[in-house]
Structures are given as structure tokens and as C-alpha cells.
């Protein structure tokens, strides 16, 4: 499981870098943040790919977690993690990760959760190799994170994509992965998309509260994650009671939010799977 530890570490470091980039002089560097978000995404997919080991049948080409090049993720030697079960588990766990900034999409999340359950029996469909390239994931990403006020449309989009796409679970994976990545990307890109999102996020929790039971269970986690993605991490640190992060603490802040996030994935995803 060294790769899991490694992936976790890389995720913490990446989050720390993204946080740091917000406060550094000269503004957010688009290129560097793009690269960091790529690494973060890869590490996250690797990390979560084994989280629910054995959920799905292993696919012969276990590289779907990547951008879509079909190559096996291989940072610490060979990895035996199946891909599309990884995709599924990533999807499932993504729901919890997504909660805060996507509480609007709460219903969508639930719908997607259902989709997964529906799709699971169709193992052939799920067990396909990851999509062609960025295009697949990118498109879903665009659709997924662009909408902030239309949970219904989001979920429909996800459903239609998963039904129509040749690319199977990986596409759906990408859809859900996009949420979190969308948050990071919007944070890192410094584009106008970021501001409306950031302001919209704090307003969301009450809306999301009316959603499903599983969501309610994690309100505490929700608010902490909101502060992570909605307000440049300082909210998280104040929540922790720690001093505002200095340069030396960038990796710590990354670790903090990672560690807060990841342990809570378990109960949340358990609920989803049961549901």
C-alpha cells in the first residue's frame, strides 16, 4: 500500500501548493497550477482507486484513472489497482468530497449514486478503458462545474453522458471527479468562474440541507470543506484553531484538509453504497 501513502502525500503537497499560489506575489500562475492540478487529480484517483478494493471486476487495461491515455499509473512500480472499479469507487467517494461546494448538486450526487448502482450490474459497460483523452473528462468537467444553480440539469447531463458514452464508467468518474477538480481548477485558474463560485458556495449549505440523509450526516465536514474551497483555506486553519498559515505551513495546511477530508470519506461512502 505504499503507493496509497505516496498518493496521499502527493495530494497533500499539491493542495498545499494550490493554497500557497493564492497568496504568492504576482498572482496565480496559470501554468503551474494547471500542472499541480493534474498531479493532484492523478494522485487522488490512484489513492481512491484502491479505497474500495474489489468492488468491480478488474479491467485488463488498468490505466483509466489517468487523463485518459490508457497507460497504467505507475509512480511506485507496478500497480495492480483495477481501473474501472477504481473509477466507480472514485465516483462514489467523490460524492462526499464534493458535498460542500456542490451542495446545490446534492440531488445530482444522489442521482449519480443511483446511476452507479444501476450500472454496476452491467459490468461490461463499466469495465471499459478510460476515455480517449481530456476531451471526455474535460467536457463533463465543463458541464459539471459550470452549473451552480441547476442540480437537475447537472444530474441529467451526467445520466445522459453515462448512458450515451462509449467510455463507460470512466466518463462517469470524470463527471464526478470534475466537481472537486472544478473547485481546484477554478481556484487555481483565477478565472472569473472562481469568484461567483466562491460567493455561491457559502450560500449553499442551507439549500443542500434539504437534501438526502447522507448529506445531513456530514454537515460538519461540509462546512469545513466549504471553507477550504470557498475561501482560500484560511477558514480551515482558523477552524483548526491554528495560526494562519505561513509559508512553512503550506504542506501542513494541505495535509490538514486532506486528513480532514479523507477519513470522513469512509462513513459517507458507506452510506452511499448502502443507499
Amino acid at each position: 500500500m505504499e503507493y496509497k501513502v505516496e498518493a496521499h502525500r502527493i495530494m497533500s503537497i499539491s493542495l498545499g501548493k494550490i493554497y500557497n499560489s493564492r497568496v504568492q506575489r504576482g498572482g496565480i500562475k496559470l501554468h503551474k497550477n494547471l500542472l499541480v492540478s493534474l498531479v493532484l487529480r492523478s494522485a487522488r484517483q490512484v489513492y481512491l482507486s484502491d479505497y474500495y478494493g474489489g468492488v468491480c471486476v478488474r479491467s485488463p487495461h488498468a490505466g483509466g484513472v489517468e487523463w485518459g491515455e490508457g497507460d497504467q499509473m505507475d509512480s511506485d512500480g507496478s500497480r495492480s489497482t483495477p481501473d474501472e472499479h477504481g473509477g466507480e469507487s472514485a465516483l462514489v467517494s467523490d460524492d462526499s468530497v464534493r458535498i460542500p461546494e456542490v451542495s446545490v448538486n446534492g440531488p445530482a450526487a444522489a442521482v449519480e449514486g443511483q446511476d452507479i448502482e444501476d450500472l454496476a450490474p452491467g459490468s461490461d459497460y463499466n469495465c471499459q478503458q478510460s476515455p480517449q483523452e481530456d476531451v471526455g473528462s474535460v467536457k463533463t468537467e465543463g458541464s459539471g462545474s459550470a452549473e451552480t444553480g441547476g442540480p437537475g440539469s447537472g444530474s441529467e447531463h451526467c445520466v445522459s453522458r453515462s448512458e450515451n458514452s462509449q467510455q463507460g464508467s470512466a466518463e462517469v468518474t470524470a463527471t464526478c471527479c470534475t466537481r472537486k477538480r472544478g473547485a481546484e481548477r477554478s481556484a487555481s485558474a483565477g478565472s472569473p468562474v472562481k469568484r461567483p463560485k466562491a460567493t455561491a458556495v457559502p450560500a449553499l449549505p442551507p439549500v443542500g440541507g434539504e437534501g438526502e440523509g447522507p448529506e445531513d450526516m456530514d454537515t460538519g465536514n461540509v462546512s469545513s470543506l466549504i471553507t477550504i474551497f470557498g475561501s482560500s483555506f484560511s477558514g480551515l486553519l482558523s477552524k483548526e484553531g491554528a495560526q494562519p498559515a505561513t509559508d512553512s505551513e503550506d504542506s501542513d495546511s494541505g495535509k490538514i484538509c486532506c486528513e480532514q477530508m479523507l477519513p470522513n470519506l469512509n462513513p459517507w461512502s458507506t452510506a452511499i453504497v448502502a443507499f
Partner: protein
Amino acid sequence: MKCFSRYLPYIFRPPSTILSSSCHTEADIISTVEFNATGELLATGDKGGRVVVFQREQESKNQPQRRGEYNVYSTFQSHEPEFDYLKSLEIEEKINKIRWLPQHNAAYFLLSTNDKTVKLWKISERDKRPEGYNLKDEDGRIRDPATITTLRVPVLRPMDLMVEATARRVYSNAHTYHINSISVNSDYETFMSTDDLRINLWNLEITNKSFNIVDIKPANMEELTEVITAAEFHPNQCNTFVYSSSKGSIRLCDMRASALCDNHSKFFEEPEDPSNRSFFSEIISSISDVKFSHNGRYLMTRDYLTVKVWDLNMESKPLETYQVHDYLRSKLCSLYENDCIFDKFECVWNGSDSVIMTGSYNNFFRMFDRNTKRDVTLEASRENSKPRAILKPRKVCLGGKRRKDEISVDSLDFSKKILHTAWHPSENIIAVAATNNLYIFQDKVN
């Protein structure tokens, strides 16, 4: 291959730094180095927004061995820190690139850019000044007109040479993202400035208008997958330019094809080796610099671990690939942690396009001879470089038994990196920027 031996006793530090190089200020870090077209001038830009121009001494018959040393010619503040109030962003004054314009008269012109603004500077000499004004005396004090009884015509008298730099044009407000390159066209009328997502074409005379010739910004920023990392005009075809991307591809565009050159004419990319796949594959394949050869037939690109030479007529794979520091491949995770993996190394051709040079860590820089296939690693450091000393080739030991003069990978100092180098256009003189120090090396005098 000529060995770089004779070391010109030139370690430059801007006057404001303390003598010890270990406590330099951030502002003194050199961020760009560029020879002009004749090699007579060498410009450096630093993080503090200053430009320092060196001029080569004329060769004197009295001291033939002191052939053409470079001395400070002009220093000026090119860019100041600015604040974008709309986005609450500070704009760094760091000089990202300097490009010289060809010389038409006695003055020298260069373009310098920071993240947002390009400026055209005129560097001119003044060695005469007018004396004998009527209305003011030699100190500049105004004379009482009532005391003036005769009129005289002011005459020009020689004075100590003064070099002054004036900003002639300021090309601003055209880039939303950070400018990473500028390139002067061979028509000497236009230049382009490149940021992460767009390339703009300017006329040197016109500052309030620029034409967008490449735009890779997606309609939805969430769909962003690659950015432009560098761009350059072809050295003799004024309609051709290339730009490199963070995905490791290079696109060659022809401005005659359409006004917006989003569709490339040629696409250079080498398929990735799947056995080298890792978390960091995308980062290390991102191209940090692209340079045309002087003859315009080849293209050189630098990514994190390699330098590649491409033939413009072959898009499928590079002509030559040189490993700069492949021993770092197993250390990518640590380099990611300390941010070194994001370092943008530049690469340069020599005048005859037979040798290429690029920097590395530990103040090492590497040269590759394309003809003999030999390469050398040299170090730019004060301790190893006495005047007239011959630079000793260095070697990094990969593990196992370390020989006497070798240095092990773990002992490399990653804070000492050589990102910027320049090669004289016709002679074997190189300028190497090591953090805040500039080293100028010259080939043996024959």
C-alpha cells in the same frame, strides 16, 4: 568541440548587493540574459525589474590577451511593481524576457517585458553637451534678463560619456495572463508577445493596438488542458512562428494562412514512452523553451529532463534527443515537493548551430556537440574559476562507487540552478546566469 577554457575574470553583481554571494537579495536574481545581434552588447534582466547592459571592450593592440571583456554599459529600472486594482493582484516587476532589435543608427533598442507589459527602450550615448546658454548660467540658475548685454550661440562641448536609457514605447493592457515570451520578427517591424493562452502581434510603432494571432483559451476555463509556454518567430521567414505547449507539443503556424493562427501548419510531438509514466509525466514533458536554429532549419525544445532538436520537415519525432540530467528521473517526487520540477530551463544554439547549451542544478551547465555527439558538464562557480583558469568538466555519479572528482546526485544543490544562458552570435563566448551572478566564459584564444 571547442572546450570552454579561458575564464574571463568577470563575476558580475549589481552594486546594491553585499559582497558575499550567499546573502543576495531576491531582487538581484537574474531572470534573463541576451546578446544583441552583433554580440557587442549583453543585456541581463533581474527580478527587481532592472536591466543591466554590458558592452564589449574594443580590442586594444596593447593588450591582445584581454580580448574584449564586457563592462557595464548601462543600468536602468525597466519595470516597477504594479497593482491591478480590479483583480487585487500585484504585478511583479521581474523581467521575463529581453530581446534586442537590430541596430539602425547609433542608438540601441531592446524590448523588455514583465508579466503584463512590454517596453521598448532606447539606449543612447551622450558625449557632448551644449554650453553657453543665454538665459541660464553654467550651474543652471536663471539669469536676470536685465544683466544680459550680449547674445551668444550655445556650442556643443565634449563631456564624459553618459549612457541614457529612455522608454520609447510601452505596450500594455493586452494580456490577461502572464507574458512568458517576446520575439522580434525578421521584418523588424513587428513583434509578438505570448502569455499562457494567447499570442499578440504588435507593430513596434503602435502601442494602442495589437492583433491576437493565437488564442487557445477554451470557452469554459474548466476545460483548460494546456497552456502556451514559449513562442518564437522564424529567423528569416517573417510569416512563420512556433509556439510550445505544456503538453510537450510544438505548433508551427503560418500567418499567411489566416488571421487567427489557431490551426497549425505543422504539429511536432513525440509520443510518450509508456514505460516512463508517473504522476509527474505531464510536468516533465512541459516545454520550457523553444528556439529556432540560426539557419532556420531546426528547432530546439527544452523540457525538464531533455533537450530535443527537431527538423522542421519531420513532425513525428525529434531528430536528436539529449539527456540533460536523467539521474533526476528517480527523484521527481522530491523535486515536486521543493518546486524544482517547475523550473523553466532555457536552451541556446551556438552561432553555427553545431553546439547546444542548457543549464542544470548545482550551477552546472551542459553543452552538446551535435556533430561529434560529445557532451560536457561545466560548473559556474567562484571557487572553481580563477582568472585564466580552464573550466574542468564535471561529472555526476549515479550511484555505486563515487570517483574522486565526481559529485553524487544527493549532494547536488538544487537551489543553485542555471536557468538562463546566452551564446554570442558568432564567437565562442557564453554568458551564464547563476542566481544573482553572471559568468562570462570565452574560448581559448588561438
